[in-house]
């Protein structure tokens, strides 16, 4: 049996299993709290796994291992930013958010503000961030199927994108938060087991001598010792000082973006209390941290065992480094059958990874559309719970369909930068609004709206005029050149702009509600009046 057939069989088993869970979840999803927040009945460990499943995208599994395999140490910079970011979520956001919000990020922002403008801004930002992220994942899925299943025809890629899109729509429309969370839990376990297995086999091959593995990786990369230190990909000496500033800009967006990502934030609502939210972030940090340490070994292992040249020939971005490594170590240890089996397992895990992440993003954006824009902006708070859930399901379908269409259109473009752009927008617009809401007494409607739009617009505009959109061979439009700024990552400018807009908007407006601030502060810190878990 070929590895393509075996991967397909394993993947079909995963899909069948998760669909069964989804239909089970759909029978238990009745109220709005069930659909948006899984009835707030997940345990800290379950939600911690789901946090990992939501967060560890194919970009971080295949992408980071690939960057390390091709450019060495620089891939590790990504992992560290992605991990340290969770401390912002743990210390400043998770528990307070759980206590003061209900279903979406906007619940916290609109708590003491004029609800319509703030919910509109937060809804727009949620949908924009989620669609950026979604596009990068779905276009990536189309490319991966070619690499992993040997489907190279244009039609094959289009059908892959449609299939991924339809599955995510089914998970969200029928399973809501319950179904999506379970898909993410199953995926997190598969991903951790798969990554740990390959890591152990690779380390075993080198007699558990990490130094030896690194030495072989550096030698096989053809770049020598430079492979083991920063500088081959980000802020290379050829790019001069702007390249280094770009690296710092990326680092800022990674570390500050996580706690402003809507699909991450809504995970805190799925547990019964703030204390469970704390526990789930603790579990999440442990799982994500261990996972990134595994990808470090996978990346350098791929360079040492497979060789950077072979990896670059299979895919310019190195996305097949981890699967090729699995095949090679399997073959070395257990012969051809072993290679086929391990490659198939890793390929199936990669697809499961994509599905779990896109489902989380679709849920976040459709929840925000239904709860913020439909129920509070269009209906001015007059929608019933039942109407809200119906609208949420319809919007999951519509957003999924839009994402499929956009991904098919964008599949020949290089849209990998959309992931870091999503982080930059989250850090520049959402995070200032959230932190000011929770901690600044004077903060008001004008401040919240200015922070969100200021951060969102400045990040997007800076990227449009950057080398990732035009003016470089790797740009989204390589043949055009309208770039004005030498930075690929807008964070270093757009994050201060977002915070500044929030500050100026606040002090230039007289509005101020001390009573409501007392309520959100007491609620956030004590859990008094916080949403309870549903009891069924």
């Amino acid at each position: 049996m070929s590895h393509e057939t075996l991967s397909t069989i394993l993947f079909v088993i995963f899909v069948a299993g998760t669909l069964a869970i989804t239909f089970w979840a759909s029978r238990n999803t009745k109220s709005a709290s069930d659909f948006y927040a899984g009835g707030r009945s997940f345990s800290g460990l379950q939600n911690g796994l789901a946090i990992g499943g939501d967060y560890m995208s194919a970009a971080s599994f295949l992408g980071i291992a690939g960057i390390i395999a091709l450019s060495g140490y620089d891939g590790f910079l990504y992992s560290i930013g992605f991990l340290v970011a969770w401390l912002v979520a743990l210390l400043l956001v998770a528990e307070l958010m759980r206590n003061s919000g209900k279903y979406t990020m906007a619940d916290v922002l609109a708590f003491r503000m004029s609800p319509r403008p703030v919910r509109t801004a937060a809804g727009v930002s949620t949908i924009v961030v989620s669609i950026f992220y979604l596009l990068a994942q779905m276009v990536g899925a189309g490319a991966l199927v070619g690499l992993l299943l040997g489907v190279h025809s244009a039609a094959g890629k289009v059908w892959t994108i449609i299939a991924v899109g339809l599955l995510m729509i089914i998970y969200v429309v029928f399973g809501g938060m319950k179904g999506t969370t379970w898909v993410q839990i199953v995926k997190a376990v598969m991903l951790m087991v798969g990554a740990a297995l390959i890591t152990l086999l690779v380390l075993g091959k080198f007699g558990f001598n990490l130094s030896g593995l690194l030495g072989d990786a550096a030698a096989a990369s053809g770049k020598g010792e430079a492979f083991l230190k920063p500088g081959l990909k980000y802020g290379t000496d050829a790019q001069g000082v702007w390249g280094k500033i770009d690296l710092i800009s990326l680092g800022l967006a990674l570390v500050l973006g996580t706690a402003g990502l809507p699909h991450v934030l809504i995970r805190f609502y799925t547990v019964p209390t703030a204390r469970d939210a704390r526990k789930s972030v603790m579990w999440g940090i442990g799982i994500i941290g261990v996972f990134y340490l595994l990808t470090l070994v996978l990346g350098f292992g791929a360079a040492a065992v497979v060789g950077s040249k072979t990896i670059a020939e299979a895919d310019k971005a190195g996305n097949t480094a981890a699967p090729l490594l699995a095949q090679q170590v399997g073959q070395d240890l257990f012969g051809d059958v072993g290679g086929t089996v391990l490659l198939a397992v890793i390929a199936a895990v990669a697809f499961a990874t994509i599905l779990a992440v896109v489902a989380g993003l679709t849920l976040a954006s459709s929840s925000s559309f239904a709860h913020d824009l439909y129920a509070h902006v269009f209906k001015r708070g007059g929608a019933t719970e039942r109407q809200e859930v119906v609208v949420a399901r319809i919007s999951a379908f519509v957003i999924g369909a839009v994402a499929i269409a956009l991904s098919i259109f964008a599949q020949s473009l290089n849209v990998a930068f959309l992931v870091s752009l999503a982080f930059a927008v989250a850090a520049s617009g959402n995070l200032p609004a959230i932190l000011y809401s929770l901690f600044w007494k004077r903060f008001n409607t004008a401040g919240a709206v200015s922070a969100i739009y200021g951060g969102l617009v400045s990040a997007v505009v800076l990227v449009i005029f950057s080398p990732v959109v035009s003016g470089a061979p790797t740009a989204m439009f390589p043949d055009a050149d309208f770039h004005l700024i030498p930075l690929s990552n807008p964070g270093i400018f757009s994050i201060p702009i977002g915070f500044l807009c929030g500050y100026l908007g606040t002090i230039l407006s007289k509005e101020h509600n001390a009573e409501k601030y007392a309520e959100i502060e007491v609620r956030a810190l004590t859990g008094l009046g916080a949403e309870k878990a549903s009891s069924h």
Partner: protein
Amino acid sequence: MTVQHDPSVYERIQAGEQFQELRRRYRSWAFPMTVAFLAWYLLYVVLSGFARDFMGAKLFGNINVALVFGVLQFVSTFLIAWAYSRHAAAKLDPIADELRGEAERRDEVGEGAK
């Protein structure tokens, strides 16, 4: 349905000594620690950009400063998360529970939302 609360209840709790103590304990731990771990992370990023020879210096075998520094970021993240959960359990949760329990016993704030 959310029960409509009398907002002055929250203002009274907020003004109380116990709540002020809770807020002080939370902020005086979380804020400086956030500044510290962000500074520690930015130091790592800046050194990765501007001090590459230092980052490339070998410590033992092929293990260099960059790798150890990177792994230390993981270690510090795990330790800070653990320390925060200890701090919260020992210093924050008891006061929060007491304040919430008192208010709910007096039934000033309803059941919350179902």
